[in-house]
């Protein structure tokens, strides 16, 4: 059983049909990359999995650990173990680094979980562990997140998602707008997180960077999967890369 299975989903933004019967799966323990041009439907796929609305998923199913989560509320999907590092990071600029990280702890409060079908919640990942992994955040615990650099905000967005101790971590364009040196740092962080047992779904426009750390890749185009195979295979398949990714 795949950790995440997307089976023939049709997703709409208003009346525009974005995903057309898209199917894909993420296996436990791997780094899976979802590639494609701007507007191919990558972020829509990710939002569909995360239960964010819009898009409106009208057909097909999304299953996580075998449970149908197609129409499950986004907060319920998150608390069941799907962590998200969204496009443009979306850290809370008016909260400190520590407060951003504390929100995940708040999600475990009885006032938030009572009466919800959340199963057995794992312990949140200890702050000390996250600060050890991201020393820059440790130095800036009490600084407002809005004052951090782009790279630091990206680290914070990743740490915030990891605090939930998710089984699946989805990252949407984590390298966007970052300097090459910082991209290396983020790459290292993703690989380390994966080594420690978290399954990764990575969405990237920067195909080369994504292929270099992925085990397996999907390419989507016009809302459908057009390539599904190993990262090695894609690296050697220049025609497919040129045709769908332009590299």
């Amino acid at each position: 059983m795949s950790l995440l299975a997307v089976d023939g989903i049709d997703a709409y933004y208003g009346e525009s049909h974005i995903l057309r019967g898209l199917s894909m799966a993420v296996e436990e323990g791997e780094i899976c990359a979802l590639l494609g041009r701007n507007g191919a439907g990558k972020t829509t796929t990710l939002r569909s999995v995360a239960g964010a609305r819009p898009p409106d998923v009208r057909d097909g199913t999304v299953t996580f650990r075998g449970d149908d989560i197609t129409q499950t509320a986004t907060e319920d999907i998150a608390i069941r173990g799907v962590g998200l590092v969204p496009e443009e990071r979306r850290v809370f600029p008016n909260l400190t680094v520590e407060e951003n990280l504390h929100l995940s702890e708040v999600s475990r409060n009885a006032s938030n979980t009572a009466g919800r079908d959340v199963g057995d919640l794992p312990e949140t990942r200890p702050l000390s562990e996250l600060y050890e992994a991201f020393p820059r955040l440790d130095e800036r615990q009490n600084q407002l997140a809005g004052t951090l650099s782009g790279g630091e905000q990206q680290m914070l967005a990743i740490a915030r998602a990891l605090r939930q101790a998710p089984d699946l971590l989805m990252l949407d364009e984590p390298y966007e707008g970052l300097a090459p040196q910082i991209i290396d740092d983020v790459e290292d962080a993703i690989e380390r997180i994966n080594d420690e047992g978290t399954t990764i779904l990575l969405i990237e426009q920067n195909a080369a960077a994504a292929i270099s750390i992925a085990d397996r890749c999907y390419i989507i185009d016009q809302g459908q999967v057009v390539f599904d195979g190993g990262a090695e295979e894609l690296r050697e398949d220049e025609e497919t890369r040129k045709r769908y990714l332009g590299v």
Partner: protein
Amino acid sequence: MVDIAGILLTGLQQGAIFALLGLGLTIILGTMEFLNLAHGALYLIGAYMGLFIVREVSVQEGLLAGIAADPAAVGLGSSFLVALILTPILMFVIGVAMERFVARPLYDRTEVEQLLLTFGLALIIEELAREFVGSQPFSSYAPDKLLGFTVSGQADVPLVGLYPRWRFVVIGLTFLLIGLSYLIIERTDFGLIVKAGTRDSEMVRMLGIDITRSYALVFGVGAALAGLAGLVGGTIIDVAPGIGTNNALVPAFLTVVIGGAGSVVGAIAGGIILGMVAAVFQFQAPQWSQIVLFGFVAVFLLVRPGGLFGSVEVGE
């Protein structure tokens, strides 16, 4: 006696009331992206609540005059302290009910629909007040004593001169309430959710937090603050059906515009700035004071479209 200290004090006192109103409006606007034009009506309810708890007044018009056992003495005639405890509790309940039955069905609708419904509700509440107690203004109900201290009359304060004692109490009380709200927002998990939610409520949900559970509480707190502003306001100005719009909704709205939508600190700063500007013109050129307020806010917006601390674009 009109001098700078007097103007500043009056500005501070008005501004603190605006800040209380703006706080409630801004947290509701920021967390739920819901613009509540009935916010002024909550102030109105608070003011009438205070009136009938603190005084026994003679009601000559309206339904209440017909059904009251003794229309010449309607009300509890209790102490201001009782009103100070009862008003926020009752207003909190009203706010929670409002979230459930008025706001919740409208979260997914357009801003225009929200504005129409909440403005309609404000008009209904104002007309209900007219129906029940008539259009007559009731004189303000500042108490003579509070906790055993004399709070009426004038105090002779160095640098300021003679200034009404009650106004000092109002300043102290409103700042205490502002401080308390600030602590709730800054120091509690509920406050953390509200603060994060004012910037990005979807992201809060994506961290596993069911933010809709906080909505009722946010509305309740916002209504309690508006009600308290009304209770305090009614000790300074006469209570009549029109004060909800003129003395509460308009300044609350301008306060949020100056401070920036969704910003707690902005509402506090914006309220005080607005109160000061209003006070200067009330003393110097009272006939201009309303126009100048709008003019001031318009110019302010040209310079800083997002307000002092704003980042949330309304209608985004």
